[in-house]
């Protein structure tokens, strides 16, 4: 197993009290595999990524958690535990390509900066060559010219490719992509996703794809983990989870997704959309029982009292969910 994250808990200190953003989250990603981490906004997806990278905000504290990356184990509660891996074992692609590049330096400079760390001994010329090569690999036309351009001279899709080229240059064992395509349109999104997959295949890294689009996950990922209010509710292969969601939340989430070929009422104004009623629980004060209890459509009495453990779903060993209804008596 390439990457495994165990029992990650993160608190944010706020004037109003401590928010428990993550509680005991564990993830596993195989080498060469892409894991989709889904969940509503605010469920803690980015926090997972930042905790792994050691880029959490100043008011954040990792209260527990270890990560094993490429066979090396890291205690995430330590400050900057994975600092050594940044740019060498891990790389991250962020949501907004407009804002992830420094506007006053050329693409080339920023790419070479990554190489300074990746291959310290190299001279400028080789670094430039490698950077151009990477740009070519992400299918950016005319890489030599791009090197001397500034981010604002490129379109959003091109910029995101530059960011991917950056990740490519750092040859990571784990690539984290935090909503890498939300700012882009569908055609570009598809291209970018193909780039990421290409990158994964080229260097054989593990990819953690963070998104709230189930469509993306089902289309591109191998495995899926569902996060809700700081807790992981379900994980498994995409096929399995989609075929047989173990947790009601996962099911409802899939139901909310609007497929392009959904049945359509002739009178457009009659078309309705599925929703999950209710709000996220207060992150400062976790209610007892199942975290999804308040919004669940199939909950029963016990759900309010017992915090369910992680139960396997069906026969598939990799598929598990935290729902009392899976509890085999």
């Amino acid at each position, binding site marked *: 197993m390439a990457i495994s994250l165990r029992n990650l808990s993160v608190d944010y200190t706020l004037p109003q009290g401590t928010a428990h953003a993550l509680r005991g989250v564990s993830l596993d990603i195989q080498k060469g595999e892409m894991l989709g981490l889904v969940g509503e906004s605010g469920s803690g997806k980015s926090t997972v990524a930042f905790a792994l990278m050691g880029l959490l905000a100043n008011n954040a504290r990792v209260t527990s958690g270890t990560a094993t990356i490429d066979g090396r184990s890291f205690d995430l509660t330590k400050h900057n535990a994975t600092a050594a*891996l*940044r*740019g060498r074992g891990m790389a*991250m692609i962020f949501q907004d390509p407009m804002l*992830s590049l*420094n*506007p006053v330096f050329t693409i080339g400079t920023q790419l070479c*900066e990554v190489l300074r760390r990746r291959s310290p001994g190299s001279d400028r010329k080789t670094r430039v060559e490698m950077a151009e090569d990477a740009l070519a690999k992400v299918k950016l036309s005319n890489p030599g010219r791009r090197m001397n351009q500034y981010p604002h001279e490129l379109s959003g899709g091109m910029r995101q490719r530059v960011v991917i080229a950056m990740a490519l240059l750092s040859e990571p064992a784990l690539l984290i992509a935090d909503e890498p395509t939300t700012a882009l349109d569908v055609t570009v999104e598809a291209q970018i996703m193909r780039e990421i997959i290409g990158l994964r295949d080229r260097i054989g890294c593990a990819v953690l794809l963070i998104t709230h689009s189930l469509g993306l996950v089902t289309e591109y990922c191998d495995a899926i983990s569902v996060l809700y209010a700081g807790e992981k509710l379900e994980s498994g292969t995409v096929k399995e989870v989609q075929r047989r969601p173990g947790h009601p939340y996962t099911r409802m989430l899939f139901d909310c997704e609007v497929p392009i070929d959904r049945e359509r009422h002739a009178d457009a104004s009659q078309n309705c959309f599925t929703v999950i009623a209710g709000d996220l629980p207060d992150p400062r004060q976790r209610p007892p029982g199942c975290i999804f209890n308040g919004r669940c459509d199939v909950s029963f009495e016990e759900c309010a009292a017992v915090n369910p453990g992680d139960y396997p779903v069906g026969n598939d060993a990799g598929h598990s969910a935290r729902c009392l209804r899976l509890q085999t008596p």
Partner: protein
Amino acid sequence: MTRSQRTVAFIASRLASMVLTIAGATLLLFLMVRLVPGDFASVMLGPRATPELRAQIIHDMGLDRGMLEQLWLFASRAVTGNFGEDVVSHRPILDIVLDVIPNTLALAFSALTLALVVGIPIGVIAALKPGSWLDSGLALLSISFITTPTLVVSVILFLIFAIGLHWLPVAGAGDPGDVMDRLQHLILPSVALALGWVGYISRLVRAALLDTLAELHVRTLRAYGVSEYRIVGLYALKLALVPVVSILGIGLGDLIGSSVVVEIIFARSGIGSLIFNSIAQRNYPVVQACVVFIVAFYIVANLVVDMINALLDPRIAAGRG
């Protein structure tokens, strides 16, 4: 348009507005100076200024002509750089002004350099550990630099270093042939002039740097393990310098203005003291020539600042900054 074409267009448009501003400022200046009461002859000669002499000097200065004619004369002269002759010394006014300009420029630029060389590092250090005691201490230091008037700083420096310790010369601009002597004479005045700007620049750098450090591209660099020193000192700093450089345009104007006080205290010849004396004497032609130079200098400085900014931030030249 290509990038270089855009840059040319950018500079051309800046030049055009520069010419306009100089023209406007000249007109304003002309009207203003002409309205100031007082007459040169009496100031220069006191009771010796008989009505006859006064009329003669007024004639020599061209003040007895029609306002429009005067304006035309002044404008056409200003364009050719010939400002006429001084009525007292019969020297070309251009020479009188050119005599003192190097002193002021040396003062302004050394003060500016000092302000940057000291101010930027202070700002960077403060921004590295925001909220720390070091930051608070530097903030207090910077603010007290800003708030202590140049006047007071000059007097205090003067008393301590020139009078008390005899380390540095007291008066004048030094022997023109002797570079070391000139530099020595430059130290105290430029420190006096620079101190406020040290504070100002350090605060500005700190604020701009903190803003920049919160931007997402910094996070990208961190994610790739680029060292914090490189991030702050190179990637964030370059961006943070844009607002700082913008301020310098105004700052240079301010430096020239404040140089009046400094030049008077340190008895340096310079455009500040020249214009002050000329106003006191109501020597309008010299005042006008001086102000044309100051305004032109300010505007050119701003142009340079804009161009530096366009170099720092390519988006500005592209018209998106």
